[in-house]
Protein backbone atom coordinates (compact mmCIF):
# COMPACT_ATOMS: atom_id res chain seq x y z
CA UNK A 1 0.00 0.00 0.00
CA UNK A 2 1.49 3.36 -1.03
CA UNK A 3 1.56 6.33 1.32
CA UNK A 4 -1.12 8.06 -0.76
CA UNK A 5 -3.43 5.03 -0.67
CA UNK A 6 -2.87 4.77 3.08
CA UNK A 7 -3.63 8.45 3.63
CA UNK A 8 -6.75 8.31 1.49
CA UNK A 9 -7.97 5.18 3.29
CA UNK A 10 -7.46 6.85 6.65
CA UNK A 11 -9.22 10.02 5.45
CA UNK A 12 -12.27 8.22 4.06
CA UNK A 13 -12.60 5.37 6.59
CA UNK A 14 -11.30 7.38 9.54
CA UNK A 15 -13.39 10.48 9.00
CA UNK A 16 -16.38 8.44 7.85
CA UNK A 17 -16.03 6.14 10.86
CA UNK A 18 -15.77 9.09 13.26
CA UNK A 19 -18.82 10.70 11.72
CA UNK A 20 -20.73 7.40 11.79
CA UNK A 21 -19.80 6.68 15.40
CA UNK A 22 -20.82 10.16 16.54
CA UNK A 23 -24.06 9.83 14.59
CA UNK A 24 -24.76 6.56 16.42
CA UNK A 25 -24.06 8.30 19.73
CA UNK A 26 -26.43 11.11 18.73
CA UNK A 27 -29.14 8.54 18.03
CA UNK A 28 -28.28 6.90 21.36
CA UNK A 29 -28.73 10.22 23.17
CA UNK A 30 -32.07 10.79 21.43
CA UNK A 31 -33.24 7.36 22.57
CA UNK A 32 -31.95 7.93 26.10
CA UNK A 33 -33.72 11.25 26.48
CA UNK A 34 -36.89 9.69 25.01
CA UNK A 35 -36.81 6.69 27.36
CA UNK A 36 -35.72 8.69 30.39
CA UNK A 37 -37.47 12.05 30.10
CA UNK A 38 -36.95 14.72 32.72
CA UNK A 39 -40.01 14.82 34.95
CA UNK A 40 -40.99 17.94 36.77
CA UNK A 41 -40.50 17.91 40.52
CA UNK A 42 -43.64 18.34 42.69
CA UNK A 43 -42.57 21.95 43.30
CA UNK A 44 -42.30 22.62 39.55
CA UNK A 45 -45.73 21.03 38.94
CA UNK A 46 -47.29 23.46 41.40
Amino acid at each position, binding site marked *: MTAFEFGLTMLVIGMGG*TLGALFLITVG*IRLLTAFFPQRNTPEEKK
Partner: protein
Amino acid sequence: MTDAFLGGLRALSEGGVALVTGGGSNLIMIAVACVMFWLAVAKDVEPLLLLPIGFGCLLANLPLSELMHAGGVLKTLYEFGIGNELFPLLIFVGIGSMTDFTPLLANPRLLLFGAAGQIGIFLTLLIALGLGFSKEEAVAVAAIGACDGPTVIYVSNLFAGMERIPTAMVGALAVAAYSYMALVPVIQPPIMRLLTTRKERETKMPSPKGKVSKAALIAFPLVVTIITGIIAPKGLPLMGMIMLGNFLKVSGVVPRLVKASENEIANIATLFLGLAIGGTMYGPQFLTRDTMLVFALGLVAIVLDTVGGVVLGKIWYWLSGGKVNPLVGAAGISAYPMAARLVQTEGHRWNKHNYLLMHAMAANTGGQIGSVMAAAIMLSVLKGLGIL
Protein backbone atom coordinates in the same frame (compact mmCIF):
# COMPACT_ATOMS: atom_id res chain seq x y z
CA MET B 1 48.10 13.37 46.68
CA THR B 2 48.20 15.93 43.86
CA ASP B 3 46.74 13.36 41.51
CA ALA B 4 43.86 12.79 43.93
CA PHE B 5 43.13 16.55 44.09
CA LEU B 6 43.29 16.83 40.31
CA GLY B 7 41.07 13.78 39.91
CA GLY B 8 38.54 15.27 42.30
CA LEU B 9 38.57 18.64 40.55
CA ARG B 10 38.27 16.95 37.16
CA ALA B 11 35.19 15.07 38.36
CA LEU B 12 33.58 18.32 39.50
CA SER B 13 34.31 20.08 36.22
CA GLU B 14 33.27 17.25 33.88
CA GLY B 15 29.62 18.37 33.78
CA GLY B 16 30.45 21.95 32.84
CA VAL B 17 32.98 20.86 30.23
CA ALA B 18 30.51 18.41 28.69
CA LEU B 19 27.83 21.12 28.57
CA VAL B 20 30.09 23.56 26.74
CA THR B 21 31.71 21.04 24.40
CA GLY B 22 28.56 19.00 23.76
CA GLY B 23 27.65 20.69 20.49
CA GLY B 24 25.23 23.20 21.93
CA SER B 25 22.05 21.13 21.62
CA ASN B 26 21.80 20.59 25.39
CA LEU B 27 22.25 24.33 25.95
CA ILE B 28 19.47 25.07 23.45
CA MET B 29 17.17 22.63 25.23
CA ILE B 30 17.94 24.23 28.59
CA ALA B 31 16.94 27.54 27.00
CA VAL B 32 13.75 25.87 25.74
CA ALA B 33 13.05 24.68 29.30
CA CYS B 34 13.52 28.26 30.53
CA VAL B 35 11.04 29.50 27.89
CA MET B 36 8.54 26.94 29.20
CA PHE B 37 9.09 28.20 32.76
CA TRP B 38 8.57 31.78 31.58
CA LEU B 39 5.37 30.88 29.71
CA ALA B 40 4.03 28.96 32.71
CA VAL B 41 5.00 31.41 35.46
CA ALA B 42 4.81 34.80 33.77
CA LYS B 43 2.09 34.14 31.17
CA ASP B 44 0.08 31.42 32.96
CA VAL B 45 0.20 29.22 29.83
CA GLU B 46 -0.66 25.61 30.79
CA PRO B 47 1.46 25.81 33.98
CA LEU B 48 0.31 22.39 35.20
CA LEU B 49 2.05 20.81 32.25
CA LEU B 50 4.75 23.20 31.13
CA LEU B 51 6.40 23.37 34.57
CA PRO B 52 6.98 19.61 34.95
CA ILE B 53 7.76 19.15 31.24
CA GLY B 54 10.24 22.03 31.39
CA PHE B 55 11.87 20.66 34.52
CA GLY B 56 12.13 17.19 33.02
CA CYS B 57 13.72 18.77 29.95
CA LEU B 58 16.18 20.70 32.14
CA LEU B 59 17.14 17.57 34.10
CA ALA B 60 17.60 15.44 30.98
CA ASN B 61 19.84 18.01 29.30
CA LEU B 62 22.27 18.57 32.14
CA PRO B 63 25.21 16.47 30.95
CA LEU B 64 26.18 13.35 32.87
CA SER B 65 22.94 13.56 34.84
CA GLU B 66 21.96 10.01 33.81
CA LEU B 67 18.35 10.60 34.88
CA MET B 68 17.10 9.12 31.60
CA HIS B 69 19.51 6.19 31.75
CA ALA B 70 18.42 2.75 32.98
CA GLY B 71 17.53 3.08 36.66
CA GLY B 72 17.39 6.90 36.51
CA VAL B 73 14.32 8.53 38.01
CA LEU B 74 12.99 9.98 34.74
CA LYS B 75 13.56 6.71 32.89
CA THR B 76 11.79 4.83 35.70
CA LEU B 77 8.83 7.23 35.55
CA TYR B 78 8.74 6.85 31.76
CA GLU B 79 8.70 3.06 31.91
CA PHE B 80 6.27 3.04 34.83
CA GLY B 81 3.63 5.32 33.37
CA ILE B 82 4.28 6.34 29.77
CA GLY B 83 5.76 3.17 28.29
CA ASN B 84 2.63 1.27 29.28
CA GLU B 85 0.19 4.18 28.58
CA LEU B 86 -0.89 4.37 32.24
CA PHE B 87 -0.51 8.11 32.95
CA PRO B 88 -2.50 9.45 29.96
CA LEU B 89 -5.30 7.04 30.82
CA LEU B 90 -5.35 8.10 34.49
CA ILE B 91 -5.56 11.72 33.35
CA PHE B 92 -8.53 10.74 31.21
CA VAL B 93 -10.37 9.45 34.30
CA GLY B 94 -9.88 12.92 35.79
CA ILE B 95 -11.00 14.67 32.59
CA GLY B 96 -14.13 12.51 32.46
CA SER B 97 -15.00 13.34 36.05
CA MET B 98 -14.58 17.07 35.34
CA THR B 99 -16.70 17.11 32.17
CA ASP B 100 -20.39 17.95 32.19
CA PHE B 101 -22.18 16.42 29.20
CA THR B 102 -25.57 17.94 30.09
CA PRO B 103 -25.50 20.65 27.34
CA LEU B 104 -24.67 17.96 24.77
CA LEU B 105 -27.48 15.68 25.93
CA ALA B 106 -29.87 18.63 25.78
CA ASN B 107 -28.84 19.37 22.20
CA PRO B 108 -27.28 16.21 20.71
CA ARG B 109 -27.27 17.48 17.10
CA LEU B 110 -24.30 19.64 18.03
CA LEU B 111 -22.23 16.47 18.47
CA LEU B 112 -21.72 16.64 14.72
CA PHE B 113 -19.49 19.67 15.26
CA GLY B 114 -17.29 17.29 17.24
CA ALA B 115 -16.84 15.25 14.06
CA ALA B 116 -16.17 18.25 11.80
CA GLY B 117 -13.57 19.46 14.30
CA GLN B 118 -11.49 16.34 13.64
CA ILE B 119 -11.01 16.86 9.89
CA GLY B 120 -7.63 18.44 10.67
CA ILE B 121 -6.38 15.09 11.95
CA PHE B 122 -7.01 13.28 8.69
CA LEU B 123 -5.91 16.10 6.37
CA THR B 124 -2.70 16.58 8.36
CA LEU B 125 -2.09 12.86 8.06
CA LEU B 126 -2.11 13.24 4.28
CA ILE B 127 0.23 16.26 4.42
CA ALA B 128 2.64 14.45 6.78
CA LEU B 129 2.75 11.47 4.44
CA GLY B 130 3.46 13.85 1.57
CA LEU B 131 6.37 15.32 3.54
CA GLY B 132 7.94 11.89 3.83
CA PHE B 133 6.95 10.82 7.34
CA SER B 134 6.38 7.08 7.79
CA LYS B 135 2.79 5.89 8.21
CA GLU B 136 3.13 5.58 12.00
CA GLU B 137 4.89 8.95 12.32
CA ALA B 138 2.21 10.59 10.18
CA VAL B 139 -0.58 9.15 12.36
CA ALA B 140 1.19 10.31 15.53
CA VAL B 141 1.73 13.83 14.12
CA ALA B 142 -1.86 14.02 12.87
CA ALA B 143 -3.09 13.14 16.37
CA ILE B 144 -2.08 16.67 17.45
CA GLY B 145 -5.24 17.68 15.59
CA ALA B 146 -7.17 15.91 18.34
CA CYS B 147 -6.24 18.97 20.47
CA ASP B 148 -5.90 16.58 23.32
CA GLY B 149 -2.54 15.97 25.04
CA PRO B 150 -3.24 12.55 26.59
CA THR B 151 -4.57 11.22 23.27
CA VAL B 152 -1.42 12.38 21.44
CA ILE B 153 0.81 10.80 24.08
CA TYR B 154 -1.20 7.58 24.06
CA VAL B 155 -1.08 7.19 20.27
CA SER B 156 2.54 8.26 19.80
CA ASN B 157 3.83 6.17 22.65
CA LEU B 158 2.06 3.13 21.28
CA PHE B 159 4.26 3.46 18.18
CA ALA B 160 7.37 4.38 20.20
CA GLY B 161 6.91 1.20 22.25
CA MET B 162 6.91 -0.78 19.00
CA GLU B 163 10.01 1.19 17.88
CA ARG B 164 8.11 2.53 14.86
CA ILE B 165 8.80 6.17 15.82
CA PRO B 166 11.74 7.64 17.79
CA THR B 167 11.13 8.09 21.53
CA ALA B 168 12.26 11.73 21.29
CA MET B 169 9.33 12.33 18.94
CA VAL B 170 6.87 11.57 21.78
CA GLY B 171 8.21 14.58 23.69
CA ALA B 172 8.01 16.84 20.64
CA LEU B 173 4.45 15.73 19.92
CA ALA B 174 3.35 16.22 23.53
CA VAL B 175 4.87 19.68 23.80
CA ALA B 176 3.40 20.69 20.43
CA ALA B 177 -0.04 19.39 21.44
CA TYR B 178 -0.11 21.17 24.79
CA SER B 179 1.40 24.37 23.38
CA TYR B 180 -1.20 24.65 20.63
CA MET B 181 -4.02 23.81 23.07
CA ALA B 182 -2.86 26.75 25.14
CA LEU B 183 -2.69 28.89 22.01
CA VAL B 184 -6.27 28.12 20.92
CA PRO B 185 -7.42 31.65 21.96
CA VAL B 186 -4.75 33.08 19.64
CA ILE B 187 -5.14 30.64 16.74
CA GLN B 188 -8.93 30.40 16.42
CA PRO B 189 -10.37 33.97 16.38
CA PRO B 190 -8.71 35.13 13.12
CA ILE B 191 -9.94 31.98 11.36
CA MET B 192 -13.45 32.40 12.79
CA ARG B 193 -13.60 36.02 11.55
CA LEU B 194 -12.04 35.21 8.18
CA LEU B 195 -14.55 32.48 7.35
CA THR B 196 -17.76 34.16 8.53
CA THR B 197 -19.65 37.29 7.62
CA ARG B 198 -20.65 39.84 10.25
CA LYS B 199 -24.29 38.82 9.80
CA GLU B 200 -23.44 35.17 10.49
CA ARG B 201 -21.42 36.06 13.59
CA GLU B 202 -24.31 38.14 14.94
CA THR B 203 -26.76 35.22 14.68
CA LYS B 204 -28.60 34.71 17.96
CA MET B 205 -29.32 31.18 19.09
CA PRO B 206 -32.11 30.59 21.62
CA SER B 207 -31.24 28.75 24.83
CA PRO B 208 -31.64 24.95 24.60
CA LYS B 209 -35.08 24.02 25.91
CA GLY B 210 -34.73 20.32 26.68
CA LYS B 211 -34.01 19.22 30.24
CA VAL B 212 -31.91 16.13 30.86
CA SER B 213 -32.89 13.49 33.37
CA LYS B 214 -30.41 11.93 35.75
CA ALA B 215 -31.13 8.50 34.26
CA ALA B 216 -30.10 9.75 30.79
CA LEU B 217 -26.93 11.32 32.23
CA ILE B 218 -26.03 8.03 33.93
CA ALA B 219 -26.77 5.90 30.86
CA PHE B 220 -24.81 8.19 28.50
CA PRO B 221 -21.24 7.11 29.44
CA LEU B 222 -22.32 3.47 29.29
CA VAL B 223 -23.80 3.90 25.79
CA VAL B 224 -20.69 5.72 24.51
CA THR B 225 -18.41 3.06 26.00
CA ILE B 226 -20.38 0.22 24.40
CA ILE B 227 -20.55 1.94 20.98
CA THR B 228 -16.78 2.62 21.06
CA GLY B 229 -16.07 -0.94 22.15
CA ILE B 230 -18.06 -2.28 19.22
CA ILE B 231 -16.81 0.10 16.52
CA ALA B 232 -13.25 0.87 17.60
CA PRO B 233 -12.05 -1.55 20.29
CA LYS B 234 -8.40 -0.48 19.90
CA GLY B 235 -9.33 2.92 21.27
CA LEU B 236 -11.47 1.62 24.10
CA PRO B 237 -8.84 2.33 26.79
CA LEU B 238 -9.06 6.05 25.90
CA MET B 239 -12.84 6.33 25.70
CA GLY B 240 -13.39 3.82 28.49
CA MET B 241 -11.35 5.83 31.00
CA ILE B 242 -12.95 9.18 30.12
CA MET B 243 -16.40 7.61 30.43
CA LEU B 244 -15.46 5.86 33.68
CA GLY B 245 -14.59 9.25 35.17
CA ASN B 246 -17.88 10.69 33.93
CA PHE B 247 -19.87 7.70 35.17
CA LEU B 248 -18.41 8.16 38.66
CA LYS B 249 -19.43 11.84 38.54
CA VAL B 250 -23.00 11.46 37.29
CA SER B 251 -23.79 8.43 39.46
CA GLY B 252 -23.64 10.79 42.43
CA VAL B 253 -22.89 7.97 44.86
CA VAL B 254 -19.07 8.03 44.96
CA PRO B 255 -18.08 11.62 45.76
CA ARG B 256 -14.79 10.45 47.27
CA LEU B 257 -13.77 8.69 44.05
CA VAL B 258 -14.82 11.71 41.99
CA LYS B 259 -12.74 13.99 44.23
CA ALA B 260 -9.77 11.62 43.96
CA SER B 261 -10.13 11.42 40.14
CA GLU B 262 -10.38 15.19 39.74
CA ASN B 263 -7.59 16.00 42.15
CA GLU B 264 -5.12 13.45 43.50
CA ILE B 265 -5.10 10.98 40.60
CA ALA B 266 -5.13 13.60 37.82
CA ASN B 267 -2.57 15.79 39.58
CA ILE B 268 -0.10 13.03 40.38
CA ALA B 269 -0.41 11.55 36.89
CA THR B 270 0.05 15.02 35.35
CA LEU B 271 3.20 15.71 37.38
CA PHE B 272 4.82 12.36 36.57
CA LEU B 273 3.69 12.46 32.93
CA GLY B 274 5.12 15.96 32.49
CA LEU B 275 8.46 15.04 34.05
CA ALA B 276 8.79 11.85 32.02
CA ILE B 277 7.83 13.58 28.76
CA GLY B 278 10.29 16.39 29.49
CA GLY B 279 12.92 13.72 30.03
CA THR B 280 12.52 12.56 26.42
CA MET B 281 13.52 16.03 25.17
CA TYR B 282 17.24 15.26 25.08
CA GLY B 283 18.93 17.82 22.84
CA PRO B 284 20.93 15.66 20.42
CA GLN B 285 17.85 13.51 19.71
CA PHE B 286 15.22 16.24 19.95
CA LEU B 287 16.62 19.02 17.77
CA THR B 288 15.98 17.54 14.35
CA ARG B 289 14.23 18.59 11.16
CA ASP B 290 11.36 16.25 12.03
CA THR B 291 10.76 18.00 15.36
CA MET B 292 10.42 21.34 13.60
CA LEU B 293 8.03 19.76 11.09
CA VAL B 294 6.01 18.27 13.96
CA PHE B 295 5.46 21.75 15.38
CA ALA B 296 4.52 23.16 11.97
CA LEU B 297 2.12 20.31 11.21
CA GLY B 298 0.55 20.58 14.67
CA LEU B 299 -0.39 24.17 13.90
CA VAL B 300 -1.75 23.13 10.49
CA ALA B 301 -3.87 20.42 12.15
CA ILE B 302 -5.51 22.79 14.61
CA VAL B 303 -6.12 25.42 11.93
CA LEU B 304 -7.79 22.79 9.72
CA ASP B 305 -9.88 21.54 12.68
CA THR B 306 -11.19 25.06 13.20
CA VAL B 307 -11.85 25.51 9.50
CA GLY B 308 -13.76 22.20 9.43
CA GLY B 309 -15.95 23.20 12.37
CA VAL B 310 -16.72 26.71 11.10
CA VAL B 311 -17.42 25.50 7.55
CA LEU B 312 -19.92 22.93 8.90
CA GLY B 313 -21.39 25.79 10.95
CA LYS B 314 -21.82 27.86 7.78
CA ILE B 315 -23.49 24.96 5.97
CA TRP B 316 -25.79 24.48 8.96
CA TYR B 317 -26.50 28.23 8.99
CA TRP B 318 -27.66 28.12 5.37
CA LEU B 319 -29.64 24.88 5.77
CA SER B 320 -31.40 26.14 8.91
CA GLY B 321 -32.28 29.50 7.39
CA GLY B 322 -29.88 31.41 9.64
CA LYS B 323 -30.73 29.78 12.98
CA VAL B 324 -27.28 28.35 13.79
CA ASN B 325 -24.34 30.64 14.50
CA PRO B 326 -21.35 29.24 12.54
CA LEU B 327 -18.96 30.34 15.29
CA VAL B 328 -20.24 27.44 17.42
CA GLY B 329 -18.48 25.09 14.98
CA ALA B 330 -15.10 26.34 16.20
CA ALA B 331 -15.86 24.77 19.60
CA GLY B 332 -15.96 21.28 18.06
CA ILE B 333 -12.41 20.56 19.23
CA SER B 334 -11.20 18.95 22.42
CA ALA B 335 -9.74 22.00 24.18
CA TYR B 336 -12.37 22.03 26.93
CA PRO B 337 -13.76 24.44 28.08
CA MET B 338 -11.41 26.95 26.48
CA ALA B 339 -12.84 26.64 22.96
CA ALA B 340 -16.42 27.03 24.24
CA ARG B 341 -15.56 30.15 26.22
CA LEU B 342 -13.81 31.56 23.19
CA VAL B 343 -16.93 31.10 21.04
CA GLN B 344 -19.03 32.80 23.72
CA THR B 345 -16.61 35.74 23.88
CA GLU B 346 -16.42 36.06 20.10
CA GLY B 347 -20.20 35.81 19.64
CA HIS B 348 -20.79 38.36 22.39
CA ARG B 349 -18.28 40.72 20.79
CA TRP B 350 -20.40 40.96 17.62
CA ASN B 351 -23.83 40.90 19.27
CA LYS B 352 -24.12 42.02 22.88
CA HIS B 353 -27.38 40.06 23.24
CA ASN B 354 -25.82 36.81 22.09
CA TYR B 355 -25.20 34.00 24.59
CA LEU B 356 -23.69 31.03 22.79
CA LEU B 357 -22.06 29.37 25.79
CA MET B 358 -24.44 26.43 26.25
CA HIS B 359 -24.38 25.62 22.52
CA ALA B 360 -20.61 25.98 22.44
CA MET B 361 -20.28 23.74 25.52
CA ALA B 362 -22.33 21.09 23.73
CA ALA B 363 -20.09 21.33 20.65
CA ASN B 364 -16.98 21.36 22.85
CA THR B 365 -17.91 18.21 24.78
CA GLY B 366 -18.80 16.76 21.37
CA GLY B 367 -15.26 17.68 20.32
CA GLN B 368 -13.88 15.81 23.33
CA ILE B 369 -15.77 12.68 22.38
CA GLY B 370 -15.00 13.25 18.69
CA SER B 371 -11.24 13.55 19.22
CA VAL B 372 -11.04 10.38 21.28
CA MET B 373 -13.32 8.60 18.82
CA ALA B 374 -11.17 9.72 15.86
CA ALA B 375 -8.05 8.36 17.59
CA ALA B 376 -9.87 5.15 18.44
CA ILE B 377 -11.05 4.75 14.83
CA MET B 378 -7.54 5.43 13.51
CA LEU B 379 -6.01 2.77 15.76
CA SER B 380 -8.67 0.24 14.80
CA VAL B 381 -8.22 0.96 11.07
CA LEU B 382 -4.43 0.58 11.52
CA LYS B 383 -5.07 -2.82 13.10
CA GLY B 384 -7.32 -3.72 10.19
CA LEU B 385 -4.55 -2.75 7.77
CA GLY B 386 -2.10 -4.97 9.66
CA ILE B 387 0.04 -2.02 10.80
CA LEU B 388 -0.73 -2.38 14.51
